[in-house]
């Protein structure tokens, strides 16, 4: 991968460590059709930045994140106008070229560490293999680095834990191993897809804190359904609905003063600790199915602010005094 044309100079010039332009993921549907589950997503990230991609099931958030590592499952198809990962053009990268990038330039933390880790390998050997694949270290050096990393992610008795199998660890410790595996080759981008959803609240807090501590130099993408998790460790948030980003901006702006009616609706629908308890305001209806390709705004059927135009013309993602919002009739400031 080091020989990819222009990669080193591109890396030196570009401030962005990740550039995504018009990313689309589709799956076959019926006989001749394809249905898009990611319908043109664009964003870029710099080192040290933490972006939350927030959405509900079916919003396309997971497919967006898998695309960045070339992991869209068959028979899915990913294409993009531009996809630069750590200065490398991966738009047309083949199946056999991805392993050199994955884990080295960009790494992933999955929701379920039990299925993300090979069950018949000890955590030490999983780490050593990952290290040796990307770094020119001897087995002993790799082992030393593995134990150091196990310790760094807060696993007690790292040398003893080197020889245990994933199932012998608790869910929280397994997720720490996943994080160790993700950071051990110092990638420029770490993608964490619902890394704490399967965990209890007190363990979730530990893992979020660990992610924040360990991923400082790289760019972090946190994929979550939980606005609270997004608020806890990210600087920016992208709200996804029906395959597209509908609002992108600083966490404070988006969560304190949302402009898109969907973002505002989500915030009004989740319980929070306010001295005066207010009734939750549900969003009526449910999200559209991906093959439902109307001309208008996909949120329009559920939207209290919808106007005539919303049913016939889809609003583009445009900067509205401050941050991008895709809405014809945004919530007033």
């Amino acid at each position, binding site marked *: 991968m080091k020989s990819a044309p222009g990669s080193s100079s591109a890396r030196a010039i570009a401030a962005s460590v990740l550039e995504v332009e018009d990313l689309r993921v589709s799956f076959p549907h019926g006989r001749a059709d394809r249905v898009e589950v990611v319908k043109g997503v664009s964003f870029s990230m710099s080192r040290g930045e933490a972006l939350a991609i927030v959405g*509900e*099931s079916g919003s396309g958030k997971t497919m967006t994140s898998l695309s960045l590592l070339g992991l869209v499952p068959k028979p899915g198809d990913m294409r993009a106008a531009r996809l630069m990962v750590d200065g490398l053009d991966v738009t047309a990268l083949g199946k056999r070229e991805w392993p050199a990038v994955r884990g080295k330039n960009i790494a992933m933390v999955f929701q379920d560490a039990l299925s993300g880790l090979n069950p018949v390998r000890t955590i030490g050997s999983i780490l050593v293999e990952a290290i040796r694949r990307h770094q020119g270290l001897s087995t002993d050096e790799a082992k030393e680095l593995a134990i150091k990393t196990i310790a760094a992610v807060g696993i*007690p008795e790292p040398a003893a834990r080197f020889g245990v199998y994933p199932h012998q660890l*608790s869910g*929280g*410790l397994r997720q720490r191993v996943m994080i160790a595996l993700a950071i051990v080759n110092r990638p420029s981008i770490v993608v964490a897809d619902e890394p704490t959803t399967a965990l*209890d*609240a*007190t*363990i*979730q*807090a*530990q893992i*979020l*804190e660990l992610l924040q501590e360990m991923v400082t130099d790289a760019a972090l993408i946190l994929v979550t*359904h*939980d*606005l*609270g*998790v*997004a*608020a*806890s460790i990210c600087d920016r948030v992208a709200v996804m609905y029906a395959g597209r980003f509908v609002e992108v901006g600083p*966490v*404070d702006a988006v*969560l*304190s003063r949302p402009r898109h009616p969907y973002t505002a*609706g*989500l*915030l*009004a*629908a*989740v*319980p*929070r*600790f306010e*001295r005066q*308890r207010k*009734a*939750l*305001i*549900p*969003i*009526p209806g*449910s*999200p559209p199915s991906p093959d439902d390709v109307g001309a208008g705004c996909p949120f329009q059927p559920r939207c209290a602010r919808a106007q005539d135009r919303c049913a016939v013309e889809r609003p583009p993602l445009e900067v509205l005094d401050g941050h991008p919002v895709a809405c014809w009739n945004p919530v007033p400031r």
Partner: protein
Amino acid sequence: MTEPLLRAQDVVVKFKVGRRELTAVDHVSLDVGRGETVGLVGESGSGKTTFGLAVMRAHDLDEGRIVFDGTDLSGLDDRRLRPFRRRMQMVFQDPFASLDPKMKVGAIVSEPMRVHHTGTSEEIQERVATLLEAVGLPSNSVGRYPSQFSGGQKQRISIARALALDPEFLVADEPVSALDVSIQAQVIAVLEEVRQRFGLTSLVIAHDLALVYQITDRIAVMYLGQIVEEGPTDQVVFGPLHPYTASLLSASPVADPELERSRQRIVLLGDPPSPIEPPAACRFHTRCPIARPVCSTETPPLVEVATGRRVACHFAGEVGPVLEVD
């Protein structure tokens, strides 16, 4: 004061795990007054679901009593329990697993009435229509199958079924945690509405403290099989006395950047211990931010510090409040 509708006294439930024994519920006492909504909060392994099943007498008790409307249910056999089963119903977490995919919605909702012979088929049909309307489902739902409904709608069907026999008491175990965020509020609204309309008393079991804060009058917090704190919802949330409650409040993610910044952060060390071998004395001492030597040698009793306010901690009130934003 009038007698509570439900009174659980010193309930103990044990499981066999291989050759060992796990005490899932360890001497838990809890009252739920008529018309009250009580929240039972805890993480996995805390015993909250097992306690809910024991209350419903869907699980046998090893010790203790469940007194419902003045009658001790603990010793009753199935036949004598039957009239009480009508009056107590349960809504489960997973609407996908709890509805028979081969039954139409009309049959699912009417089944409890048919089993208990509560009326003529016209009366039953009428009741089904009322219930579907109450949970916000269209009347033509009766002829459709569960698979034709979304997760939120399935949970509405479960709620309608739970209300079929006009119960007084409803246990809801994680009623919205399997649903998408935008749908959760819909189901919470339905639960609130039917609670008022049918005058229900309820026990809501959940891991999500913010959700429980939203819908309950009182909260009990469980850790490794025991209640560690109990009190009026406002007091528990804004003035937690037990360090575990404080840490849960600190850990529950809230979509409020200002609160995220201002609230006290307490990140507990380590994992919850195994309920098979709980720590001696105070079970929380291995993870507690303020534990002292006495915590590992003496069990703190659950003491009433004010009316309806109980806590089990040698140093109650030393941590918290964590949520003050004003």
